[in-house]
């Protein structure tokens, strides 16, 4: 079947977008930005960009997902903007990690990381686990959280994230390590209460 023969999804008129997709896109932006004003700006920018690009919508997928695709770029722009306003400074603990023997020679932070207090894999099919997981991502501190969102959740390349944050790839590695550490601590604190042990 050629691309032209594929079933087309009807175009929802922009006057209905706020009612149909406003909450969905706002919730998505909040999961990445944590800031209600920035998230609302993102929704607005997404809708405006959507109206401008509507003639390029090919109908191959639901317009909700097409708008979410546009929103991903807006989220990255918002994070970049926030980083520009609060420049990322390397702290002494992170500097020490970068200078440590294990990092220099093996690219790791420690040979003996704390084991998980529960096996998260057991809960991958449990919707409640992902609700808690998302809340735990929100608790990770910036700039580790911003690095994690850009690199892991928004699939930006190492080069793109380093450029946006004005940091070296090694420091990005440290920030991602910090984000993973904090995420683990928060998950253990917040999920173990829900029968995980």
């Amino acid at each position, binding site marked *: 079947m050629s691309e032209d023969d594929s079933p087309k999804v009807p175009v929802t008129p922009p006057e209905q*977008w706020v009612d149909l997709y406003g*909450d969905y896109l*706002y919730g998505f932006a909040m999961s990445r930005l944590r800031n209600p004003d920035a998230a609302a700006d993102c929704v607005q920018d997404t809708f*405006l960009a959507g109206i401008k690009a509507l003639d390029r919508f090919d109908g191959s997928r639901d317009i909700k997902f097409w708008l979410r695709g546009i929103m991903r770029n807006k989220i990255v722009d918002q994070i970049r903007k926030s980083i520009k306003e609060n420049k990322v400074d390397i702290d002494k603990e992170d500097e020490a990690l970068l200078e440590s023997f294990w990092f220099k*020679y093996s*690219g*790791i932070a420690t*040979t003996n990381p704390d*084991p998980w207090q529960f096996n998260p894999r057991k809960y991958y099919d449990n919707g409640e686990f*992902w609700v808690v997981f998302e809340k735990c991502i929100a608790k990770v501190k910036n700039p580790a959280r911003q690095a994690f969102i850009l690199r892991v959740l928004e699939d930006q390349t190492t080069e793109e994230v380093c450029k946006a944050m004005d940091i070296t790839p090694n420091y990005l590695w440290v920030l991602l390590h910090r984000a993973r550490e904090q995420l683990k601590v928060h998950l253990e604190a917040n999920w173990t209460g829900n029968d995980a042990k």
Partner: protein
Amino acid sequence: MLTCKQVSSALSKEAYQKMPPLRRFFLRLHVKLCVFCGKFNRQVMESQEMCRCYREHEESLSPHRPKLDTDRKDALKDLLASQQIHSKPNE
């Protein structure tokens, strides 16, 4: 055989699941056997897997996420309506 540094570097540049099968095999072999980086890099791989699953479940999280308040919705509706008038001046 990969070195610890090569394994760490590969995992920092690319998610394990996105690597070619042969690379995945050698990487997993290293992580299983290595007493130096094994535990650490295994947790990196587990974290990547967890994030991949989170993204797969994201659609179902929508009802649990915050909603746009009514004032903001109304302001957005007005803005979109004005934009459409500007974008279609002849209609």
